[in-house]
């Protein structure tokens, strides 16, 4: 049975002369709609002009800096950091399965010159519920999606044999909504998105050469003022640099997929545990209510159950934390070849991405003799 209420238990230890333990029970009612059971819409024949390229940025962790508060809410920052990379890969997989898009990539940071950029923030993620804030915006600044998606799971969805993600309905719903949003646009509008994406990217490389091709209206959307000539050699140069950037993104996208596969078995176990833990909490609250009649408390059997639940949770937590640590830090160096020169990029994926973008801008400036885009230009393009 799906539950439409949320119970949270807060154990607070506060000083009391020497000190005392205070148990506070807070009950909240959440009647917001959930995604329910969703079938993925698959498009059989998608015309080329409809196949926009999509960038999914690594999600916002949605956690505060207060580690103690997070832990009290069952939020573990390292796991969140892993989830922020895991969830976009899942969404990308569903989007690819719709057969409706161009290249769907996961990228380390927000980059606004993508034809369609999807960003997300994790509001809640545990074994009972996933709550994501999703925003999708095309290169022209048109907002496609801007809403919160909520899904809840049942224990059957955590079957050991089940290959599917327990929250698959949520990702399918987002993929379907994105598809519906795209279908609402005309061919001309979709073509315009592709042009604006190109010009925004070009402007990020050289504001001097391309900055005046676009203007921004009062509502924030971009309008094409003029297009460069089709035989303009600058277009070829921009495309060359852009393709190099895509090559790099494809390389790190493969790393995200590889890390996703590595994490999946343990992460599934973690969420199953998380669900059972939350159910245990609900049960615990009920036992608190019934404690006047609870004659088992303090017996070996009862204490064993309590300790075993904690022990199990800790072992799972520590296993997953170790995995999450590796997930965060073990980004492999990326080796790229450009103009016959081999470049090796180290560090986290987002730092590698930043470094690579800078290399590409250096190359573009050297080749064209145009001033290199400054940091503020890059910020404007993002």
């Amino acid at each position, binding site marked *: 049975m799906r539950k439409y209420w949320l119970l949270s238990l807060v154990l607070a*230890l506060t000083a009391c002369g020497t000190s005392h333990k205070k148990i506070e029970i807070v009950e909240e009612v959440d009647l917001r709609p959930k995604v329910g059971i969703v079938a993925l819409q698959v498009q059989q024949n998608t015309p080329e002009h409809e196949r926009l390229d999509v960038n999914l940025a690594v999600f916002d962790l949605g956690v505060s800096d207060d580690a103690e508060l997070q*832990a009290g809410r069952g939020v573990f920052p390292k796991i969140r950091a892993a989830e922020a990379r895991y969830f976009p890969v899942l969404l990308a997989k569903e989007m690819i399965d719709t057969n409706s898009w161009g290249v769907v990539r996961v990228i380390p940071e927000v980059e606004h010159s993508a034809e369609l950029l999807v960003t997300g923030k994790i509001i809640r993620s545990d074994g009972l519920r996933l709550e994501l804030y999703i925003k999708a915006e095309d290169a022209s600044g048109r907002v496609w999606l801007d809403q919160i998606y909520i899904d809840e799971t049942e224990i059957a969805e955590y079957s050991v044999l089940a290959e599917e993600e327990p929250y698959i309905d949520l990702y399918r719903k987002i993929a379907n909504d994105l598809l519906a949003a795209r279908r609402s646009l005309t061919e001309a509008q979709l073509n315009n998105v592709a042009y604006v994406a190109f010009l925004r990217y070009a402007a990020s490389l050289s504001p001097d050469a391309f900055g005046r091709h676009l203007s921004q209206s009062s509502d924030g959307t971009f309008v094409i003022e003029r297009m460069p000539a089709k035989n303009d050699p600058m277009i070829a140069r921009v495309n060359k640099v852009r393709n190099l950037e895509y090559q790099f993104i494809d390389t790190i996208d493969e790393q995200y997929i590889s890390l996703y596969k590595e994490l999946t078995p343990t992460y599934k176990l973690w969420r199953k545990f998380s669900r059972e833990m939350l159910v245990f909490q609900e049960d615990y609250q009920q036992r608190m209510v019934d404690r006047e009649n609870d004659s088992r*408390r303090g017996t070996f059997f009862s204490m064993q159950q309590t300790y075993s639940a904690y022990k199990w949770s800790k072992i799972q937590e520590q296993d997953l934390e170790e995995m999450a640590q590796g997930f965060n830090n073990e980004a492999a160096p990326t080796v790229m070849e450009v103009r016959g020169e081999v470049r090796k990029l180290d560090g986290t994926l987002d730092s590698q991405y930043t470094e690579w973008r800078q290399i590409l801008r250096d190359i573009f400036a050297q080749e064209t003799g145009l001033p290199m885009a400054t940091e503020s230009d890059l910020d404007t393009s993002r």
Partner: protein
Amino acid sequence: MKLSHKTFRLGAIILACCLAGSLLSARFSFAAENTSHVDFTGYWSLDYLQSDDIEGKISTLLREERRRAERLAQSGSSSRRVDSGGAMVIGNGRGGPTVIDLAQMADMVASSQLLEIEQSPTNIKFKREDNFRLSCDFDVSSAVDKVNPLGTEVCGWSGHQMLFTILLPEGLTIRHRLTLGPRGTRLNVATTVISDRVYYPFTVNRVYNRYEPQGDGGISCEVTLSKGKVCTTESR
């Protein structure tokens, strides 16, 4: 009768909470002490002969309690009945949980035969066979180190001893006190189980001897996400 039962329970809860509180405050008072000379680092193997015999310990406890209760009854200073033996007194006196439950728990919690401890100036990791790892950051100012939805861990130095306390639901508290022997070759882990339903806590001492694990021909391996299994000839 119900009132006295409630009063007992309230007292037990306050006792448990205050014990937890004293452990919390203990962290602050001991944090400033120089503990750099105590290093638990190493591999440890359980020494059955030197460790507590739990059955014997329970028998002793029951015998002592029975004598105490008899003395109280003879002096007329207690209104409690003693005809059911010590277990009734040590427990809640109504056929509920007793110290034997705590002893069973202590035996279960402290059953690890092998330990591995890693210690640095700022942190200690206490790995136990078939159990979860306990760890403590010495430089954290917060008293509550780790809050899990199912429990809370508190840790810190108490002089030359290392204390780990786990506060669990239903008035259950587990405390581990690590003490290094004078020559550094023995480690005592005193595990105490406290319940708000039983008057007295129960402690079991497990003694461990230092040992050197047999290496794999001097090769140590580590599994990493990006590189898979990586083996080096570096000794551990």
